[in-house]
């Protein structure tokens, strides 16, 4: 049986995280949400995700910390960084650390879906799934 593609949304602001999750669920993805970097790591240990959408600025473990931790564990996951404070420095840093792409806030659901779709295209073919499964 085909499973839906799993996406993890990490944002400390519940309303923001919910709206991102909602936009992705409408597209047919299986979306989980974490309110902190620590919680995201716990979820990542329990379940494999294809894409992770991470807010850069969070109390405690920042989005960049989470990205480093994910890359250290060699997880096969595409990470998309979102933030309200875009700058060349953070973009370069996040991409250097292995982020797939960078999405400055505010963004539209369409932009989000497009970038997630691109992230999924960049994955190995056997991992691609039809989002409408």
């Amino acid at each position, binding site marked *: 049986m085909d499973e839906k593609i799993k996406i993890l949304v990490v944002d*400390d602001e519940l309303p923001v995280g919910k709206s991102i999750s909602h936009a992705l669920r409408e597209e047919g993805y299986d979306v989980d949400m974490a*309110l902190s970097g*620590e919680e995201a790591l716990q979820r990542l240990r329990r379940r494999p995700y294809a894409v992770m959408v991470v807010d850069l600025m969070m109390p405690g473990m*920042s989005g960049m*910390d989470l990205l480093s931790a994910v890359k250290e564990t060699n997880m096969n996951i595409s990470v998309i960084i979102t933030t309200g*404070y875009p*700058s060349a420095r953070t973009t370069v840093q996040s991409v250097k650390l292995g982020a797939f792409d960078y999405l400055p806030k505010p963004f539209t659901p369409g932009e989000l879906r497009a970038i997630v779709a691109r992230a999924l295209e960049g994955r190995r073919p056997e991992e691609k799934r039809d989002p409408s499964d």
Partner: protein
Amino acid sequence: MPFNPGVAMNLPAIDRCIRQTLDLLRGFDPRTAMFLDRRARWTKGPQTARDRVSNELWFFIWQSHREDARLEVLRNIFAPFLGHPTGWAVTRKIYRWLCSSAPQNPDEVLQVVEVITALIQHQAWHRNGTAYRPDWDSRGKALRAGYMERARAFAAGLEGCLEGESEVTRWREMAPQLMAAAGGSIDRLCAIISEEEGIRDQVETVLQALWAARQKDQALALLEEQVGPLLTMRPAHPKALLRPCLDLLTLPHLEMVSGLPYEVTGILGKLRDIRSTEHLLSVLENCARKYTQVRCNAIYALGHLRDRSALPYYLEVLTGPNSTDAALSGRPSGYSLSLRGEKRECIWALGRLGAEAREAIPVLARYGRNPERDIGAVLAWALGCIGKGQKETCGGLDAALVTSLLQLLQVEDHRVFEESAMAMRGLGLPDFLHHLYLHDFATVPILSLKPSSTGLYELSETLFYLMSMQSPVVMAVTGDSGTGKTYFCETLIEGFGGLRRKDILYLQRDRPGHMMILNRILGLRWLRDHVAPQHYENYPLAEDRDDPDLFFRQFIQQHSHRKLIILDGWRDSEYFHEVLRRFYEYGHLDVLVKFHSTYSTKRLNLEEREETLERVTAHLPLVEDPAIEETDFYREGAVLLYQLDNSISSRLNDHEIREVFQKRKVATWGQTVHIGELLHRAEWIDPQESMLASRREKITLKKKNLRPKETISFRPRETAFRRILNEEPERNPNLLQDIDLDGGDIRRIGFFTQGQVAYGDGNGDIGVLSGFQDRNFSTGVHQQPVRCLAVTGGAILSADTAGELKETCFRKKGITAWPAGSSPICSLACGRDGLVAMGHEDGTVRLWDRTAQQVYVLEGHADQVRALAIGRKGAVFSGDAAGEMHLWDLRKGSKSIFTSPGNSIRAVEMYPDGRWVIAQQVSGPTDEMAPREPAAIWILDPESGRGEVFGLNVCARIKALKVYFDGRIFIGIGGRRAVPDGHTLLVIDPRPNRPQIFSLPGHRLETIDCLTMGPRIITCGREEDGPGTLRIWGGLSYIKSELKNSALLPDHMEKPPYCRTIF
């Protein structure tokens, strides 16, 4: 084709019928009770049950505003009649039976709608005919029988016109299908009609008796006693009251003084049904001004309906008189009735109209010039709403609107300021933010309020962190009436994050059992002085046997198994603040949450809770008083404070709150709220037990009045300061940043308010550094350098090296000079309730009760009083340059004297456990020369005179002393030559088994003053090569994460205000 139901016809196309229905709907006016009569004419004022059903049905169709939803609804409703050949035949026959005198060739739609109307009416009769009535209710039972009879007659007549079993069967299927159509909406509609018919029957009976009454006063009594309760009872379907209320409003003989119009308009305000618009407008047109409460209700209801046609009426009220002659019976002639409430409601209703109320701006602007207290807040809110709408629709703002908001910012009222600031923020006027800030930045850091959606996340982490350290954790929730505090509390008390309901104790004064607990904590003596007797009439003990201290200890013991105690704020804020104060003084207040919200949110919350306008407006003015910023626990920083914007756009609903509080999410949260571990250069330090000679003496108080010498106004200078991040964290891991003050020479600092630091400098200037937009507000106050400084209630008290005492108030923009006393002041301290202590060079201590404007002179010191502190219970500790310390207990009229000959007492602070921390050192010839012997820090128990003495291993002059709430002691020292490595900030941690001392670099030459704010330590001092500097320090992990975050956030980026308050 002629109409002939007996002839088989093709099924009409549903789509065509839907189109015809939509065409018909164009003539429907939703702003009044309009129905479609049997001749397909739109008519106002339904008189029969059939007409009322017609109104309800068409309104229901009209309500589906979205085109696709409306089509779906119609398709659903029409399906039982048009979706089946027999169904259509039955429909036509029923129509003919119902409307024998109807037009000969009606549209299919008219036939279907008429049959639907009849079916709903029949179902309503059937409902009322089978409703439960108690045995004693003979009248009710008679009515029930009447309904049943009508339903039976209708069914019999209808079935009589049908032919054959199949048609009867079809008809019997059609009714349930209709009721289930559109998700059961038609069934609900039917329930409304049946309930309305029941209400009508009862009202009609009473009214008939009324018209039959011979005397007018009897009739009025009947109205008041019988119709009123009928309307104010809570029906299962409140909409059932709509048409009876509208009919009552148009009743020709209804007397205003009966009170019924007030009840009716009040109900219409609750129903908020657009069909009442025309009736409400006619109330405003016809109802005399003296019936202002009825008019207020009508405006309130219209405000909710956002009907633009009410605009001229609003303007008429606002440009009309402020009062009217209320010549009512029972009142003396010439009695003047204020119309302020009506004006307030008009302003609110204009705000609800948003951009559509643009033309009202000039009229509103007039009110902005000199608003009365209860109009200012609503005016600011309304201008904000209108401005927002105007900006969205026109792209710009009316200058008069902006000017009015700026004028409102000058009003000396907390609520008006807060609402104006919120409005300005909503309008996105960054250029004016400085203006806002200048006016009242002292007490309302409203611009940097965190939205509760973010703040509650942080609060949940803080609670989890505190609960992992101690139990119970005590959290108080406060805020003005209607800000949503009880909603929040009630969400939490169900349990969260592994906490069960029984782990949480929730105390709210409105509950009698809880009130008794809180009364016992306050004690009978306090209650007698401050509370009305009915609130403590069952107090179980006489005053001589009452021991609130003992009760509090027992209370905490009894609830030691709880994880969390929540104190929910209540309307008597003085009572609530005293409870908080007691918890604080006993060391059991951990977190304080204060909700703020806009006027509209408060109103909406109160409307939901209180329902009637009268009760809403009674609760709206209830505000937190005193403001939280005036309290000890706020100023001392020991209690974690969350001031949150809980306005509609920022808040979370109960599900979201539960989700946020579900579990602990950040393991290292503690470092973001408290000063973490300072592991830099730690050494062991062994305290020595020692004893001070002590004696007790009686004191005599000399009381004097204190009058200000003069007050001058000023305009603060505003400059920006720059933050310089620590670029060498490896070398200096506890330093976050330097504050570059462009040559400023800060000598003293004090906690001003969240994210803001008060200071006095070497030029005699007094100022406030604000973390919001990195601003420095200052003004010249003294001719000489500032020597000591204290902050109380938004005012900064300072004395210079010449001993002059000045009070600087940025809020009022005034500097007041006070008589300095017999000799120059050399130390200052502030306590609660506006108590200020002043130490003088001639050895006198003066206690200034600012509330009573009186000064008590305390004599006894033989030398300069350089150290002063006020304890939590009003005790005053003073130390002089000759080593003598006095602990003054004004309540007992005595003092304890401790002596330490040969030493000079440099500073004193209260220790968290009630002891006193004293910094002493051997007297030197001058302040600037390094002392010959190291200084010592005492933690003195005043009861026994015993103390733990921590000898400092440096021969430096003690400049500053600060005790953190967890017991760590921060000491600023000076005299670089005597300090190894030039470290001038020492920290003694007496808590572990083996106490430790750390040294932090501080400032190169000397660390003059020190302050703790949340997880940060703020110091001011002097460097070798220039003027004074200000630095921010913190625990290792906090600094690491802050520096990392700062690197992610470049300085030039625009961040949300609450991100920038970190000082």
